[in-house]
């Protein structure tokens, strides 16, 4: 999807659906975006092979989170459950496309979730998936991180709370991808009627002024309220406290910034939705 210029263009969107409550928000976000950009929308539901394998093991038990009750797992039941979820996902796609008058397809595949998503995203410009409620330090949330790190396309992680925020935040360092990131952020802010908050890590005033000027060229057409903040470095961009104060609901950043793995780590930790531009 890279066009080489500073405009962020999306033609194909892949949305990962897992039939959980948060995934309906994800699907809706993707559908809205697809309609706004006039992009092709494809859904994917992955039947997690790990779950099936787990269910086939003789000692397989699950502990319910709410009651700590032990429940025996078996393969057929798990398969049935996954099939049901797939059907649910299919229905959700039909509903949203009818509602928004869109065309969308859904493919149901079985395999390792991250790998299947990455494979399916090879032809997409943007992969959208739910952020879920990760438990830090565990395998939970690992998929999102893996996808963030390995996808060739841009990746948007969507949280359940997408309505009540005030601003879209972009980090601008001046490189090409950074220009596209700020352009994407401007588009998102305009579409959602939010404010754009641009953070510029700069070591000197002159740097800041230069980057500030440069970033303004990338905002595109249309009315937009933009606020600029100079920050000392990339670390300072991810201050959760400031984000809460500013009501940031979406963070847009490119993978070309120094320490891209650091950026990914930060993005995975954020409470709000994120968009990593590639």
């Amino acid at each position, binding site marked *: 999807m890279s066009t080489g210029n500073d405009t962020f263009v999306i033609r194909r969107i892949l949305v990962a659906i897992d039939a959980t409550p948060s995934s309906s928000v994800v699907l809706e976000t993707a559908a809205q975006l697809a309609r706004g950009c006039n992009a092709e929308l494809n859904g994917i539901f992955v039947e997690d*092979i*790990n*779950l099936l*394998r*787990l269910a*086939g*093991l*003789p*000692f*397989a*038990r*699950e*502990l*319910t*989170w*709410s009651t*700590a009750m*032990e*429940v025996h*797992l078996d*393969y057929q039941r798990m398969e049935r*459950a996954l099939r049901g*979820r797939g059907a649910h996902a299919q229905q959700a796609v039909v509903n949203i496309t009818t509602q928004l008058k869109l065309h969308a397809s859904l493919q149901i595949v079985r395999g*390792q979730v991250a790998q299947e998503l990455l494979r399916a995203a090879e032809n997409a410009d943007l992969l959208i998936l739910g952020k879920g409620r990760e*438990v*830090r*330090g*565990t*395998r*939970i949330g690992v998929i999102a991180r893996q996808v963030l790190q390995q996808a060739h396309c841009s990746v948007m992680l969507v949280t359940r709370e997408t309505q009540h925020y005030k601003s879209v935040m972009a980090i601008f360092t001046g490189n090409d991808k950074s220009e596209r990131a700020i352009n994407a952020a401007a588009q998102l802010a305009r579409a959602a009627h939010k404010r754009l908050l641009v953070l510029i890590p700069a070591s000197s005033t002159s740097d800041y002024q230069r980057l500030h000027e440069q970033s303004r060229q990338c905002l595109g057409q249309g009315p937009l309220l933009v606020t600029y903040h100079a920050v000392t470095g990339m670390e300072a961009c991810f201050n959760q406290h400031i984000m809460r104060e500013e009501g940031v609901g979406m963070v847009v950043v490119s993978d070309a910034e120094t320490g891209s793995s650091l950026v990914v780590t930060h993005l995975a930790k954020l409470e709000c939705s994120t968009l990593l531009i590639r």
Partner: protein
Amino acid sequence: MTQGEGLNADQLYRRCDPAQLPFETTAELPDLTEIIGQERALEAVRFGIDIKNSGYNIFALGPPGIGKHSLVAQLLAEPAQRRTPPSDWCYVNNFDDPRRPRALAMPPGKGRLLRDDMARLIEDLKTAIPAAFESDEYRARTQEIEEEFKERQEKAIADLQHQAQEKDIDLIRTPAGFAFAPTRKGEVISPEEFERLPEAERERIAATVANLQEKLRAVIRQVPQWRQEMRDKIRALNREVAISAAEHPIHNLRDKYADLPQVVAYLEATQENIITNIDDFRQQEDAQPGIAVLTGEHAPSFRRYEVNLIVERGNEQGVPVLYENNPTYHNLAGALEHVAMMGALLTDFTLIKAGALHRANGGYLLLDAHKVLTQAFAWEALKRAIRSKELRIEPVERLLSLVSTVSLEPEPIPLDIKVIILGDRLLYYLLCEYDPDFADLFKVAADFEETLERTPASQQRFAQLIATMTRKNHLNPFNRQAVARIIEHSSRMSGDTRKLSTHLRSVADLLQESDYYAHAARATTVDAAHVQQAIDAQERRASRLKENLQEGIQRGTILIATTGAVIGQVNGLSVIEMGGYAFGIPHRITARVRLGEGEVIDIEREVELGGPLHSKGVLILGGFLGAHYAADLPLSLSASLVFEQSYGQVEGDSASSAELYALLSALAGAPIKQSLAVTGSVNQHGEIQAIGAVNEKIEGFFDICKIRGLTGEQGVLIPASNIANLMLRNEVVEAAKNGLFHIFPVATVNHGMALLTGFPAGEPDANGVYPPDTINGRVQERLKALAQLRQSFAEHGRDKEDL
């Protein structure tokens, strides 16, 4: 009849000589400071006011308009001013039990202060508390607590994950929870692969997974406890922040009301409640009372911190003197009002409404007996309050156990009150008789006199009373002639030349009406003519029925003769009183006699038109006849007596002398002069006794005679003992002076019969025999003849039996 026996004009009317009144107009007279003619009532009311013991409430009894209210109010004014003002009373929420609101007694004027202070406090807290919770410090501290919880949870799971990973096992999220599975390169090994593992390895994995699951279970079980700990910490933090926000302003109030322990306790309870319900202050905009009603929840409402000031003394001096004009149950004892919300009726302590008893608490409450007694439950509520010495607000429906919905039971307020009931005598006597509580609760009876002695001194004070009333009502001054005329009228109202009426309302009405006529005549001083005009107008306004009856007599529809003489027929006089106006009207009374067994038949009684007093009068006649004329003979007549053309009840014995005259006339065959009318009751000895309304009766006959033309023969026989009651209309007096109309005082039946028939009555000789040419002689003769006739009939009957 001899003209000389009639009363002279001076005896018919006792004038008030204006020359005796030492002033020109009432403007010169000072106000009357004391109350005239009510010494007994005055003493009773003063006693009732002063005595502090319970049950010494006052019942002021007397006819309406006599001035009970103004006398009591006048007497109360001074002691009420002297006493220390009682408390203000407020109802406030009872935070422990909102169904039982607390009553707070506040020094006078402080109630409003507390109410305003509380309103201001809550307004301040509505901004101070959210501000405290929006502070960076609070936010940082809550995040810290939440973060700690999250970290704790994540650390426990991460530790477990770490332990698992060391053994190539991973924690996997399943549709409903978590599970452990052996992994290779991040992927769960397939069941086939697992089967291929050596048995020892398989067992090791299964055991490890079982062990990890046990550990995970322990972690999961701890999570709710950790969450609880987090909530507790947040709650403690909220409390800390709330205390810091609320403490200072409430502390200030506590200092302000430090001398009122009840208020301090209330403020402490308020503070505790605010802190406990701090979320209400934080989420004010979310309050949806309607929804709360439907869901049965209590919406955050700040009404509970309001102060319902039910009794406010303000800057009044002394204790209250309150007259409750509409003493319904709720107006007396207070009420619980309701508001309709979503179809339900709701109430709370702010809807408690004070009654007259609350407002008069500490002072005096004046009530009309008739009004209290005719309002449902009011009398019982009043007695209950006085007896229990506390004011308890209970809705009527609960009192009657009609409904049992949840309602309020406000804390009772101690009652210290003196109740003064104003009512007429009948009500007082009925209550004494039929209400067993009454004598305990209203021990002081203030009985109002309807008349006072007419002396030069009392006339002078009466003039002062008139002066006071004219000034109070902004009337023109009355000159001495006008005052004299009013005094005469008052005497007439009292029905006694030696008395003056104390009926203040009538006096006040006459003053205002006289003033009206003076105004109409553009006079600046009210004269006797204006007073007379007012009296005549009053008479005229009320006299429709009288004129109708007089017209009936004039047309001959009602048969009344004023000339000639008829046997067994006499003009009796009756009085009709309607709507406070009384007038006299003549009635034809006739008697017929024949042989009989000594019975005197009163036709009125036979048809139940005669009242008991009337019947008594007639029965006396039999006694008189028997003893007077036939002491040693059987009374062998049958006499019938009737009030001709009477179509309603006849009551009173004032016509008994007239009936006796008719009877004697019938027996003696002596015609009675129809130019005379008769009033007076008679006893068995033939003495004529006093009757009431003598003036009205005389005037009633005079009016008829006047219409037909006064002949100089006409007149009225009145009991001699009624002379002192004569205050006749001027035209009657004038007619008597000119010899056109006569008032004959009569002491005995003999005297009356002589006047009516022109025959001497006759005195008995030593044997009790009357001379033959006298009335009594003829009566005796007739009775003797009847007795003999009866005897002969009896003998004839016996002869027949012998045969």
